[in-house]
């Protein structure tokens, strides 16, 4: 891969390698805290804090950490950032902290954070690592907002607590319950898949699809 510009690094995390929609990582928070847009925003911010902070720190100490213990070191760094953000949230935004509940500490096992540290921050200088982390965080935020927007709108008739749909609209309560989370993400993924395949039909040199880990290549592509 040739040297990428900062903008490329950033945008890659948002679209091409979107952690949720393309790489299928970080599913737990994506489904669990997107029943309202407010919760989705809070989670996106908390995750961004941890991702950017830990990627930055990992990049700074990458030459000091011996190879054998790097995973433990990264986890330690990430867990520290998560503990810090958990405390900060409880202190300055208690209602958001309560709404997100145990999912703030669970940020520590969000595969995308360890993934970025291992795949990029451990091998790249400070500023590109920050950009990469910022891009991935933004991609995560995009996915969360899409989910949150759809689920809150259909499930409560509101967005960010403001009633958008008329009072006569009977909310689809299922959308803010677990099945609704799976359903919404499934529809979004199918929509994206349709979008990609449309592109491939028209243009054979389209960007190759990144298949998430553990998923087999399909036997045939759309004819």
């Amino acid at each position, binding site marked *: 891969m040739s040297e990428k510009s900062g903008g490329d690094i950033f945008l890659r995390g948002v679209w091409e390698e979107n952690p949720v929609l393309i790489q299928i990582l970080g599913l737990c928070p994506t489904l669990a805290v997107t029943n309202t847009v407010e919760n989705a925003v809070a989670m996106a911010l908390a995750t961004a804090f941890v991702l950017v902070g830990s990627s930055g720190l990992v990049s700074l100490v990458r030459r000091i950490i011996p190879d054998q213990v790097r995973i*433990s070191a990264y986890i330690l760094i990430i867990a520290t950032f998560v503990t810090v953000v958990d405390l900060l949230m*409880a202190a300055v935004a*208690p209602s958001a902290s309560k709404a997100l509940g145990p999912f703030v500490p669970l940020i520590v096992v969000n595969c995308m954070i360890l993934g970025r540290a291992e795949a990029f921050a451990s091998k790249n200088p400070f500023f590109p690592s920050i950009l990469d982390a910022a891009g991935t965080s933004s991609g995560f935020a995009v996915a969360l907002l899409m989910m949150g927007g759809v689920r809150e709108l259909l499930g409560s008739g509101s967005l960010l607590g403001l009633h958008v749909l008329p009072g006569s609209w009977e909310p689809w309560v299922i959308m*803010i319950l677990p099945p609704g989370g799976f359903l919404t993400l499934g529809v979004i993924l199918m929509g994206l898949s349709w979008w990609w395949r449309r592109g491939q039909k028209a243009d054979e040199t389209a960007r190759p699809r990144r298949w998430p880990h553990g998923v087999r290549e399909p036997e045939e592509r759309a004819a």
Partner: protein
Amino acid sequence: MSGGGPAGTGGGAEAGTGGGAGREGGGGMPVQPSSSRLVGTLGLLSVVAGVAIVLVHAWAQPRIEAHQREELRLAIEEVLGEPQRYETRWIRDGRLLDSLPAGADSSAASPVYAGFDANGRLVGYAIPGQKAGYQDVVRLIFGYDPDAGKVLGMKVLESKETPGLGAKITSDSAFIHGFDGVEAPIEGVKHPARDAHQVDMITGATISSTTVISIINDRLEAVGPVLSKAGTRTATAAGSPGADAPRTAAAAGPGPRAAGPGQGGGER
């Protein structure tokens, strides 16, 4: 440095396994760092991490506790009809205590909050309780006047019941205020209440409503006699310097979210 303790040991153990066995971690490096280097790096990292956490915790913890106290104060005011202030009492082994003896096991005692009006007279006790509901645990607090034997009010603090149905126990004001003035044992019914023991349950949320009622019944069965026996005690007037209007340094009632270490409560 307690921050370095568990993390350092865990890191050290993993470093030992990784470095000593030398299987996965080796990579392409011809010379492996010594075990002491591995342990040292992780140890240093742990110390830095520990310090960072301790600093942030020191800054954040007072604010967190202030939020919890405020939340508790608001809940108590709601269920006791806006008392002037409140004090924490403890029920242990069937007795009502003003405070837990230092070092006592606070898990064996349950807190209740005595509310006093402007004249220093006991308005009632705010009693917390919880139980498994339809979906998950329901946590609530209710006010109780032991003299009159009446419930003064009820507030659900935490619930994960079905939105639109069971979740109405937090928002349906007709249901919530149906508890004002009822007498134990409370009976849930599906029509407007006809006597002082009945509460009209929420349509379509029978189980969640029943959960609320049974929490109150269970708690009153457990602590009602203790509180009645204690009688109408007036506030400990000259007692604690901290027993002021709750807006200032409030009594250290343990918050609903037991985040801190298990310190014995009682007023400061």
